[in-house]
């Protein structure tokens, strides 16, 4: 196995072009597990921890641009107040040791349906900046996930950064697992209210082959809020709306039975998580008035 340790982004992209089968490694919290257990023996390992610019974040044309090498620990400490939904998800990742190494870029690279960041990124309408020697492009996060642990990334592309707009409304995230730490979620849900354009953002985790939006639930909730002028009045949610929202979110799930839980339990969990996170988000919205 060849170990590549580029010192610059251009060198990293050139290496990936020369070896499209190279496995990119950042914090190693996913890749090393596969190597330790002999699940994977890549011919080339592409270590991105030597590319300093990946560990930076910045404001870029009204959006926050988070380099693919920014760890969860730094995300929480440095950006938690500006990106509450993503920070909530990041706090649920693993343990301090894992959060000190793991990155949002790596979470996207693995593209697991259970990746903790994904529901928050979906709800916030994040964009993923990817690049190859052919050029750079931005992929909307909802188009990024192509299947179980498969993404829209081309073989010669690397993930460079994630773009997020600072929220104009409340964001919430919740996940269910067997305990609080070191747990792969059984089901997860993220919600973001976007009062500026009167949209609702959602993200489902661990309850479909890929992380995905609950589009039907978004449309109905945004429509009901607009019809009752609640975006402006910030009045109480009509009776039954949160329950209906939960039902619609569950209808967007497509879970399986596995060692962590049954499909039926996951749908039930989605219903509850969606109802609760909407109630929390709406209370946040009312308080912020």
């Amino acid at each position, binding site marked *: *196995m*060849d*170990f590549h*340790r580029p010192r610059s982004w251009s060198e990293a992209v050139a290496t990936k072009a020369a070896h499209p089968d190279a496995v990119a*490694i950042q*914090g*190693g*919290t996913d*890749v*090393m*597990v596969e*190597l*330790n*257990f002999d699940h994977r*023996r*890549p011919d080339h*390992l592409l*270590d991105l*921890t030597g590319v300093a610019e990946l560990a930076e974040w910045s404001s870029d044309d009204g959006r926050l641009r988070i380099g693919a090498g920014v760890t969860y620990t730094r995300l929480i400490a440095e950006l938690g107040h500006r990106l509450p939904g993503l920070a909530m998800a990041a706090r649920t990742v*693993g*343990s*301090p*040791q*894992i959060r*000190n*190494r793991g990155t949002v870029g790596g979470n996207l690279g693995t593209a697991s349906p259970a990746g903790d960041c994904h529901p928050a990124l979906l709800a916030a309408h994040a964009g993923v900046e990817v690049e190859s020697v052919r050029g750079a492009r931005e992929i909307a996060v909802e188009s990024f996930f192509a299947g179980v642990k498969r993404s829209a990334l081309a073989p010669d592309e690397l993930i460079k950064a994630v773009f997020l707009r600072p929220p104009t409304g409340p964001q919430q995230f919740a996940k269910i697992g067997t305990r*609080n*730490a*070191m747990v792969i979620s059984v089901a997860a849900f993220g919600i973001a209210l976007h009062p500026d354009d009167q949209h609702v953002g959602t993200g489902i985790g661990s309850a479909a082959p890929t992380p995905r939006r609950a589009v039907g639930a978004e449309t109905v909730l945004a429509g009901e809020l607009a019809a009752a002028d609640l975006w402006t009045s910030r009045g109480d949610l009509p009776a039954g709306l949160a329950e209906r929202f939960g039902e619609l979110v569950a209808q967007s799930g497509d879970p399986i039975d596995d060692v962590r839980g049954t499909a039926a339990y996951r749908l039930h969990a989605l219903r509850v998580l969606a109802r609760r996170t909407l109630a929390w988000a709406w209370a946040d919205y009312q308080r912020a008035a």
Partner: protein
Amino acid sequence: MRVTCSVNGEQRHADDVWPGESLLYVLRERLGLPGSKNACEQGECGSCSVFLDGVLVCSCLVAAGQVEGRDVRTVEGLAGPAPDLHPVQRAFLDAGAVQCGFCTPGLVVATVDLLARDPDPTDAEIREALAGNVCRCTGYEAILAAVHLAAARHHDDASLAGEPAAGERA
């Protein structure tokens, strides 16, 4: 490949390293430092916790090649030469927080990290900070007591950051 890095303040190198092997393997099998324990090899148990450039990590999840030129501090590097003990190690012994002892090195390293950030943590903060370290013997109560004991005894940040205070060396 050859990997050269600083381990416990000393420049070390390991030869014939397979770049995909873990830092944990390098420490235990190539550098003769078996204090960091090998249990789960997937970042779940915390028994292999070390400092990498001062940051608490699971050494089983760091590729050997990623350590080139960097600074590693293991449980062996916390105290001075034997029989000297780091204050956190002393507190674990005094509080009876050690049973089989397998998880202890990882817990000691994670506790040193916690107390360097927060010299007087609450129970909830300790539980959160040590959530990545699994112990199958103690039931954790004695470990919480040990962390409180270490915090109460040592408000000297320098000593908690790992440099034994002058008076502590035997």
